[in-house]
């Protein structure tokens, strides 16, 4: 039980922190952390295949997309 | 004709920088009439629920409409292409639909 609570707290804090960042690269990384947290929850909820997909797509591919978009645009929000 | 003059003056004040034509004014007046008449008739549909409620709603509607003239220009301003307004109305609608259907379905 305690590990579930921990994972949920990490996921939610990561997703809230995502929205508070000024640095967009940190946004990419934190969204990856939150997606991996959800993947762990999927594993706990008896869905290992979904967890794998979520870990790859949400934890690796999406942050890379966002990072590429940042590279082509701007890194800091306020500029 | 005073209503028409008021209307024309209002629009001219509002869009004084741009040139106005008959088309804009006629469109605005037509839209105004459509909105007012159809809103009042739609409110009549409430009589299938309760007649008293219909009366109250119609009186409130008339007061709201009279105090907010001209409606069509205000509606037009609310429905421009800006994402902020669309997003706001989307979330509001989601809230209204879910709560209304959930509580009135029993």
């Amino acid at each position, binding site marked *: 039980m305690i590990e579930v609570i921990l994972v949920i707290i990490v996921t939610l804090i990561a997703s809230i922190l995502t929205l508070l960042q000024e640095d967009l690269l940190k946004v990419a990384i934190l969204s990856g952390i939150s997606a991996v947290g959800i993947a762990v929850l999927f594993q706990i909820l008896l869905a290992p295949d979904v967890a794998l997909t979520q870990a790859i797509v949400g934890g690796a591919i999406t942050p890379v997309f966002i990072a590429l978009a940042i590279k082509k645009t701007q890194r800091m929000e306020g500029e | 004709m005073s209503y028409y003059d008021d209307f024309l003056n209002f629009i001219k004040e509002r869009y004084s920088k741009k040139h106005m034509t008959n088309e804009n004014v006629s469109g605005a007046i037509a839209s105004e009439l459509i909105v007012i008449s159809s809103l009042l008739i739609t409110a009549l549909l409430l009589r299938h629920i309760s007649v008293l409620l219909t009366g109250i709603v119609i009186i409130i509607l008339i007061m709201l409409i009279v105090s907010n003239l001209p409606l*069509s220009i205000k509606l037009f301003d609310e429905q421009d292409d800006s994402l902020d307004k669309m997003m706001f*109305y989307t979330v509001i609608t989601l809230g209204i639909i879910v709560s*209304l259907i959930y509580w009135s379905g029993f």
Partner: protein
Amino acid sequence: MNYLIPLMVIFPIFAALLINLFGKHNKTIKILSFIVAIILPLITLFASYGLHFFGGHKPLIDTNITGLPTYITSTNLYSMHPAITYSFTPLTKVFIFIMCIIVFLSVFSYLTSEKKASGSFLFLVFMGTAAVSAMILSDDLFNMYVFFEIAALVQTGIVIASKAEDNYETALKYMILGSIGGPMLLLGITILLAITGSVNITDIAIIISTVLIKSPISKAVVLFSFALILFGWLYASGFPPFHVIKSSLYSKSESYGSSILQAMSLLTLVAFLIAMARMFYLINIFNGAILIVSIIAMILGVSMAVMQTDFRRMIAYLSVGELGFVGLGFGLGTKFSMTAGLFQGINEMIVTALLFLGLGSVVYLTNTSNIRKLGGLISKSESMAIMVLLGGFAMAGVPPFNGFRSKFMIIHAALLAGYPEVAVIAILISIATFFVFVKALHGIYLKPQPNDLEFVHDSIPKSVIFSVAVLTIMCLILGLYPEIVTVPISQALGGLII
């Protein structure tokens, strides 16, 4: 097993991929897409009615398996649909056939009026056709959701592929709003899946009407999922609060694109509306909710259309407003009114395609869509002006066109169902529609021609005139012989809605 039914979806997807493959060879894709566009309506025409179970997994009740235990044969499990099921009824036939005709005419006028055909645009068009055909064929909610998302992406793509200004902004707005609408629809579908254990609409309808509606607790869950699916439906069909983005989507696309876009959103609307009507018809506020949403759509759409000076935007708002009539038919809740609503949907699809294609020729000639800058175009092409005028009559509901028939049926149904207010609103909206047309036609064709009006092209391509003429003739035929469409629709509705 009828293999033409899945072919309606598979063939356009395959064709789209093939066209994308030959994207560089202009001549090849032109010939290829022309052939595909001809074959598409033919498939629909020759397919026979029936069900198609993917993988051949029929419900247990239809198979010859004997000796099953009683806990299967005595429960709902025995009649559940394990496979994705496509059902091809007269209703689906009519809708897909007309959609395919519109796709054919749009693609035909695109191919002949543009020198260089864009492979990606044709890819998107055929992908969209496949998506909406699958949506209206499918009996499976999740399948509908997947194709709904594909259709949303395709609509964005068609707007991106156009040359109008500000098209990227509009596409981005649509996608951002879609990331609220889509997940909410999915959430609604999943709640139904959780409480019934199936995503098949027939199964869900049976379970809701026999079990879930009886107990207040499970009814609350059904209501919650109805609210979410209703919200997703608003996004799919462009009812308020999504009417602004939908109409701006139509106006930011090429005219060939817009005529396909509006047909796509109409088919999406009809598919989800029928699904909702089948699942939730026993909920007492179902009809009221649909009715109110449709009336608000009509008022806002038409009152916004009246105030526009860009004629593409005008027709876009009008088409959103007229979609309200389809919802109105379902909101009234009788079989006659539903038939009228679906008939209006078909007319709406034809007439809006006519207007987008016909007035698209004005953009082709002058490269502007602002009524202020236009005028006197009747000297350029009288035939087009007359056909657009007839299209406007058809949309506003002037006899003997199809719009008159369907609107008359809806008003009649409203009076029969005891809602005279609805009839009055319908008449008001029709009058406003007519007003919009008089304004647009005067501005474009009859007003004296401004001195600074410059022409990009000298004459309208013959193919566009041909396409618009075909659509006008379809309007006239449906107006004179509405039985061609109403009889199959009402037959199919009798079987669908229990």
